């Protein structure tokens, strides 16, 4: 009997289409795996009935000879930042606990239209703010990976899409949605040895996605290989008139366009990413990546992205500034938590509700954002950060004169242990150092597994492409995937 947990998106889709197995069989098998993996805490809500319902519809359509969608029969996990009609949507916060939307986000609706089914709502860092999934109101997600030191220290699955990364690595689902504001798809993908792509800003509609930082938020797929990412991105992307920042462009056939022959492609290696004291294993993996791409026919060129060191501080001004405003709607008036102390007035209700409803990291970012936008500080912080953002984008523009893609590590380290960085927000923020520049510039960027470090933990290689050139990014990812021989898996300890 087929072990459906070992099949990826393409394999399930093709198997269902070819009649090798029924979509319902896949849904049942994965529902069971989800139910048995509670120790990972990857899901906030499980929706086995949704998975079955979607699978039955696909089986019925196939039996009737109707054309099947791009994701027909594929059960997936949905990051709990996407509003799902009739299913609780929390952004992993207390303030939205119990909130059941009457509407479906455009991206999730696109996926259901393509024939995918929902296994459940995946845990994440609260309001997608975090790099370890430790800020969720619903508890930490635990990575299925463990260090090879014999100790069983629980590790972070990365963040903010930590439920997504953990669930895919543990083979609870073949793929899941993620969102990436400053690395929230790429860093968790790297931490658990899977692939994930953040497309060009505007490819995926933000309508119905709980907002963190509007000018940076971008949805994307996470899966166990590059092809699966390509398939799922095709299903997710597309112009949406309900999102003014959505790109009015046709969705390319990325899967059909996959081609790992990189002849004629120039790969830029940015010297500024080679930080002092860079982890030895990371440096080695990067060198391997360079060799693989060269082997695939690409030419390697040294490039400079001179403003890289200002990216992180700029990001941690812009993202909290937008967040402080985006999160103002959680005020206890219309939906979600309301804390109304005896005899309280409106202002007291706001204060009590928001103090009780937001976690510490969310409150910290609201405070930072409020501060940088306030009178007298706006120019010194927000305006300055926007200028830096322009310079970062220009760095990339200049780089494209001499290269077509950029290769760099996804994160400066492998997964860290839960609790290791929570007392030091700055060191946590530093984990985004390689991911943030592409976010600020709105460029497509992908993480693919690049190998294991000395502790036996996965490391990720990041490929950054030109705006709208997801195809080149996916192709380079595929070239690495074919050469890295990355087959390592987390042991099934849960």
């Amino acid at each position, binding site marked *: 009997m087929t072990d459906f947990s070992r099949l990826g998106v393409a394999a399930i889709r093709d198997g269902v289409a070819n009649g090798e197995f029924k979509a319902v069989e896949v849904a049942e098998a994965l529902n069971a795996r989800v139910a048995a993996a509670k120790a990972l805490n990857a899901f906030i809500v499980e929706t086995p009935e949704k998975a079955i319902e979607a699978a039955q519809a696909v089986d019925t359509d196939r039996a009737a000879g109707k054309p099947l969608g791009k994701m027909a029969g594929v059960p997936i996990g949905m990051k709990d930042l*996407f*509003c799902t009609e009739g299913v609780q*949507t929390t*952004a992993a916060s207390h303030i*939205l606990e119990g*909130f059941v*939307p*009457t*509407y479906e*986000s455009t991206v999730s609706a696109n996926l259901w239209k393509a024939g995918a089914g929902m296994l459940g709502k995946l845990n994440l860092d609260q309001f997608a703010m975090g790099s370890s999934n430790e800020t969720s109101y619903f508890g930490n997600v635990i990575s299925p990976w463990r260090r090879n030191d014999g100790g069983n220290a629980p590790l972070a699955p990365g963040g903010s899409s930590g439920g997504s990364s953990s669930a895919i690595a543990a083979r609870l689902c073949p793929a899941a949605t993620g969102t990436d504001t400053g690395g929230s798809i790429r860093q968790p993908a790297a931490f658990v040895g899977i692939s994930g792509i953040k497309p060009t800003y505007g490819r995926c509609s*933000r*309508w*119905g*996605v*709980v*907002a963190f*930082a*509007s*000018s940076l938020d971008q949805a994307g797929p996470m899966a166990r290989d590059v092809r699966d990412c390509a398939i799922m991105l095709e299903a997710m992307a597309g112009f949406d*008139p*309900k*999102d*003014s*920042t959505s790109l009015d462009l046709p969705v390319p056939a990325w899967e059909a366009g996959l081609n790992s022959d990189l002849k004629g492609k120039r790969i830029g290696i940015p010297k500024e990413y080679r930080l002092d004291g860079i982890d030895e294993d990371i440096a080695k993996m990067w060198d391997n990546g360079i060799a693989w791409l060269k082997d695939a026919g690409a030419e390697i060129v040294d490039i400079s992205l001179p403003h890289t060191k200002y990216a992180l501080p700029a990001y941690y001004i812009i993202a909290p*500034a*937008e967040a*402080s*405003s985006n*999160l*103002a*709607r959680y*005020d206890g*008036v*219309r*939906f979600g938590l309301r804390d109304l102390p005896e005899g309280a007035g*409106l*202002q007291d209700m*706001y204060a009590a509700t928001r103090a009780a409803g937001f976690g510490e990291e969310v409150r910290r970012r609201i405070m930072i954002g*409020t501060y940088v*936008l*306030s*009178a007298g500080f*706006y120019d010194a912080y*927000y305006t300055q950060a926007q200028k830096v953002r322009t310079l970062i984008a220009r760095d990339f523009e200049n780089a494209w004169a001499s290269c077509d893609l950029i290769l760099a590590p996804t994160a400066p380290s492998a997964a860290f242990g839960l609790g290791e960085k929570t007392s030091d927000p700055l060191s946590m923020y530093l984990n985004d150092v390689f991911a943030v520049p592409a976010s600020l510039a709105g460029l497509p960027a992908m993480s693919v597994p690049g190998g294991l470090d000395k502790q036996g933990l996965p490391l990720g290689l990041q490929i950054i492409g030109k705006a709208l050139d997801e195809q080149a990014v996916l192709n380079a990812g595929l070239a690495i995937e074919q050469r890295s021989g990355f087959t390592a898996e987390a042991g099934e300890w849960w």
Partner: protein
Amino acid sequence: MSEYRIQGNTGEWEVVIGLEVHAQVTSESKLFSGSSTGFGAEPNSHVSLVDAAMPGMLPVPNRECLRQAVRTGMAINAQINRWSRFDRKNYFYADLPQGYQISQLYHPIVGEGEIEVTLNEKDPDSAVKKIGIERIHVEQDAGKLMHDQHPTMSFVDLNRSGVALMEIVSRPDMRSPQEAGAYVKKLRSILRYVGSCDGNMEQGSMRADVNVSVRKPGGELGTRTETKNVNSIRFMMQAIEYEAQRQVDLIESGGAVVQETRLFDPNKMETRSMRSKEDAHDYRYFPDPDLLPVELDDAFLEECRASLPELPDAKRVRYEAMGLTAYNAAVLTAEAETAFWFEELLAEGVDAKQGSNWLMSELFGALNKLGKTLDESPVNPKQAAELLGLVADGTISGSIAKQVFEIMLETGQGAATIVEEKGLKQTNDTGAIEAEIAKIMAANEDKVTEYRSGKDKLFGFFVGQTMKAMQGKANPQIINDLLKKALG
């Protein structure tokens, strides 16, 4: 314009006034959502997911609202900014679901313009003053709190939440309550001509924030106060008067004006402090990252320009050229409602002079008596044209026309029908008139003698008697001619 001065103990004071007029944009749907903008609906019946700021909802600009703002800008000869941007104005309040108002602080859609204001619109000799307009920007309205629905709770109605407003910001160019009143009247007239705002202050579609300061004539600008949300021209003028006097009294008694936000209480006819500068919100304006900048292309601007109607100043000049008196031209163009009514009358083929005279004396007089506005007139331009046509072609006399008009107002019947049914048609039958004249002369021999001996004034008596005998239906010109002949 006349100089308005406040007489203080230390001499004369000059008032400096600037206005921020909030005008609701005429549009079917809200600025960033498809909800209806209809007035007076059940609370919370015009509220979309976007208006209620549900998680993940995004604003999509309503092109029509931007178009109306651009057309308004063009009507005041303003700079139209081809590139503008929306900003968020952040503050918490229960009537503001998003926790921010989407507005335009840094890059408004309309830049500098001006309008010409005459202190008395109906007096063509009144001096003309140009009032500068600093900007027009587009923003969302908030919802409404209702505090009288429940003993311990306040209710929120979000029907207005997200409705588009234009904020029209003047320069501090006005120097008297009268100038401010004339400015708002002219502005409202332009908005109604353009069709970008209905100008109904009672319904809240137009309201003003009034900035007032005082200074010694020509001196340095004083500290200003801002009186919020004044919703009639009369209240605005009262608020300015009160506020200017209060500031003068304050300064002269050794105090200082504090920059603050005030409210006008129309019952007590006074302004009072709402919040001082220290308590002022820090709105933390920043560009709305959910929205792209607004870029206007040539085709859009061209369409906006082409769709503008003839504006009041141009219309007045044209009417004067058509032979109307300056007074009539000014009155007919001051309000869009009047001008459009008159235009329809002209379109029905009515002579401009005849039409304007009738409209201003007969129609206005009748409406005045009925206590109705022109929009509520029981007689429409087409019906009026029918009546005036009967006068023009000699079917009825002017005096009969007055009777017919009264019947029209009462019954709603058409003029021709009334004339027919009541037999009011004017007669040109000289024989019948001559017969009546003969009878009158026979009955008034003494007066005939007096007339013939030089008492010319008695001619009117004979005209009146003849008309009376003819029951008003005789052609007055023919009576004149025949009487002259008969009396010799």
